[in-house]
């Protein structure tokens, strides 16, 4: 077992973990942040996407010990109390989710995408989300949601 210190959604955690434990399992099973989900076992689906020090990572592709001394933000840490993050609001407004299973990862990746490129073209949005699979929406409304969030200033500093 290895001791790690990780800040998750603003709260400091000190935990003993097996060195082989994936960050996503640490978040779900030890920290209780079940908003982040597992959709595959080959790093293809992106359902487990979180932010590590502000950049998106697939948390199934990071060991918990690699997060030692770092800050993790999950889907449960982006709203400001009852006030949704502009990307969450955009997903709701644009009906960019149906079953909602890919949604946490999709939202976290979409925020990262706009942080990189605040005014993306449709093509840039589509390629920026290529690592996140959705089976329900055909991506049509997800693209619209990212466009709405870009318009609301996410990535340009006005996201909240």
């Amino acid at each position, binding site marked *: 077992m290895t001791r790690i210190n990780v800040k998750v959604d603003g709260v400091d955690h000190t935990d003993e973990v097996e060195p082989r434990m994936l960050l996503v399992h640490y978040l779900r099973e030890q920290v209780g942040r*079940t908003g982040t*989900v*597992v959709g595959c076992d*080959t790093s293809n689906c992106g359902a487990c996407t979180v932010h590590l020090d502000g950049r998106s990572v697939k948390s199934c592709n990071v060991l918990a010990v690699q997060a030692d001394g770092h800050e993790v933000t999950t889907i449960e840490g982006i709203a400001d109390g009852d006030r949704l993050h502009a990307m*969450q609001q955009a997903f709701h407004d644009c009906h960019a989710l*149906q079953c909602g299973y890919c*949604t946490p990862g999709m*939202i976290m990746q979409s925020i990262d995408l706009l942080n990189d490129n605040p005014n993306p073209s449709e093509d840039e949005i589509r390629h920026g989300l290529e690592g996140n699979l959705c089976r329900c929406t055909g991506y049509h409304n997800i693209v619209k949601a990212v466009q709405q969030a870009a318009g609301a200033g996410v990535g340009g500093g006005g996201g909240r």
Partner: protein
Amino acid sequence: MSVQTEPRASREIGNARKRKEDRRLITGRTRWTDNLVLPGMLHLAMVRSPFAHAKILSVDVEQAKAAPGVVQVITGADVADVQGALPCAWPITADQKAPDHPAIAVDRVAFSGEVVAVVVAASAAQARDAAELVDVDYEQLPAALDLKKARADEALAHPDLGTNTSAVWQFDSAQAGTGGDVDELIAAARVDGVVVEREFRNQRLIPSFMEPRSTVVDPTGEQFVMWSSTQVPHILRLMLATTLGVSESKVRVIAPDVGGGFGGKLQVTPEEVITFLAARRTGRPCKYTETRSESLLAAHHGRDQWQKLTLAADKDGTVRALKVDITADMGAYLGLVTAGTPILGAFMYNSIYTFDAYQFTCTNVFTNKTWTDAYRGAGRPEATFAIERMMDELAVELGREPMELRQQNWIRHEQFPFTSVCGLEYDSGNYEAATARAMELFDYDGLRREQTERRERGDSVQLGIGISTFTEMCGIAPSRMLGELNYGAGGWEHADVRMLATGKVEVVTGSSAHGQGHETAWSQLVADKLGVAFEDVEVLHGDTQIAPKGLDTYGSRSLVVGGQAVVRAADKVIEKAKPIAAHLLEAAADDLEFTDGRFAVRGAGEGGKSVSMGEVALATFAAHDLPEGIEPSLDSAATFDPVNFSFPHGTHLCAVEVDTETGQVSMRRYVCVDDVGTIVNPLIVEGQIHGGLAQGIAQALWEEAVFDDQGTLVSGSFVDYTLPTAADTISFVTDNTVTPATTNDIGAKGVGEAGCIASTPAVVNSVIDAVRHLGVNDIQMPCTPQRVWTAIRTAGRTTADPTTPESTSHFDPDQPNQDPPGPGDHTGVDDQKGTGA
């Protein structure tokens, strides 16, 4: 029947309400089954067969039992007497053959991925570690893998059955008295008409819901609570009772938030039964969550047919007869509706066209592969694909414009209600209107011009235009008709509407949503009906203790059947409220009218006395002053059994660009105009269409479940089973025309499967249209660059393109560290090669 253009008469129906479901989903507060943690909970891991067909000689569990955290290791032999057989709810013929379907294989495995042992341990990681230690000794048996060879009984999937043919099912319009003799008309057309004969492959797909399946079972004393990521909690409860011999009243099934299904969670799975057994044996809560690899391997697959069709027409293009001969791959076992899935397409090959004679024959065949079952559309996408491909082929044969040929043959709007050659009554529709709108949105003529220009200048990137004018039968289903088809249950749906003292409303529905937005749509229905606020309606579902009666969600049935049950229950609430309102208003009940949530004396005008539904609810709750003999409750229930299917239809148009040098297909434009009847929530309808389109397009271009010649699933991860990404798809143009359904009060026809059913042939037709002039007349799905390129290169020859070699090409026998193909133990060969290199 004309296209409805008048503005909506109500406040909620037709309103693009944002979904009530979203908040918990976008904030990560969802209750997926795998999120549940119960005190003392144990975790399961499955040991699965690596072989497609083998005898189990021995299962050595000693090492696994001794591993840290392991509580039990369960083998088939341990539970042989108590596990029963997994249910097949739809024996399609009286003489249907089927093997027993054990949850844990006892002495033989029939597909790669079948469970042979189960480890129960304190943590999921410990269970999985110990599963590696279970040592199973197999003796491989010859496996039936290729569908056509299996039909010829070259190797037997289940030797005890003596054949691979499970059942042969036929519909013949002459025998049924609903049309002419198909062979006579085909013979006549061979003399004096046109006959088009084709064989299509409808490949095997994997539903690939995003949430892997998960089950938790809590044995609470003598009761059992099961949480499962299922589409069918009610059916699951019933089947657990019948399979395991427990009392139905002792089982509670909860489907919490469920992450997609698409038919893939319309099942009673071995894993659910196993988790139940493990909880019963250990007396502790047990959880099993599959990995994605396990899901792709062992959750049921869909489609997988060879389709032979003969279409006879007059020389002027009038279609006369259609003869369909299907070979359907069941895989290794018959799941819940495996056998009936191809039959759901039986009455749809004739589609929207006025054939005089029709025959459909389906041969269900066992192979040693994952079993097939419902996948979005279930039988109807196969039918639509085949007929829409055939209509294009007929157009080519006759040198006709494909849309114009369809128009010549489809049911005209003034012919509704129309009885099809299968005897189904299509209640409403307007194919002309949907097509006209689609052609306009698509710029059909403009794209045809561009296509001609590209052809003329010999552009290396060619443009193709594909059409699909489709209908489907959904709103499954009239119980009487299901009975005639020998299905094991009815097709009704149930709802309760409860008035709370504060005027809020609880709606209990037997439909079990997993992404469809029932909470939102049902709220809209009830808000309009009872005149209460959208926000004041709470929809409860997905728990057999909260919603005890239901037949769940599949077959585009929820709004059409379940929604109608809600409407009827709400009607009964109004009827029950009326005498109480009359009493409060000191008027006669017969003089009252109910509008916008208020009872008032008819004709009393604006100043007249009135009482709201909420006030009646409070007065009923208090029950201080009710009319004599009236029970103090407004709560009402309704069970609705539809009298007919519903028949959504639409026109889908696809334009693709095909690079003739590389075979690469790029989507250029996709337009669809669907008539799904009255639309309750346009946002949800549009979303259902988008998602359906992506899945249907994926069948045409990208997805296929591929097995190698050992029966191993090669496309067993999302690396190889290529779901479309955002970068593969385009933004779609969708619109609707509306002819209300006449078989429910809402006027809805169902939308869940439409996009998936209609889009596949539109795309394939467009790909072939792009390269038709090069001599190509068919490309097997998925139309990968390699297949398109090969088709162009071998144009003029009909290519039977086997899927296996190309898909396994990355297993090159001449390279190091690769398993060479060939039966039996191959370690020796590998070793020799290793040392030789």
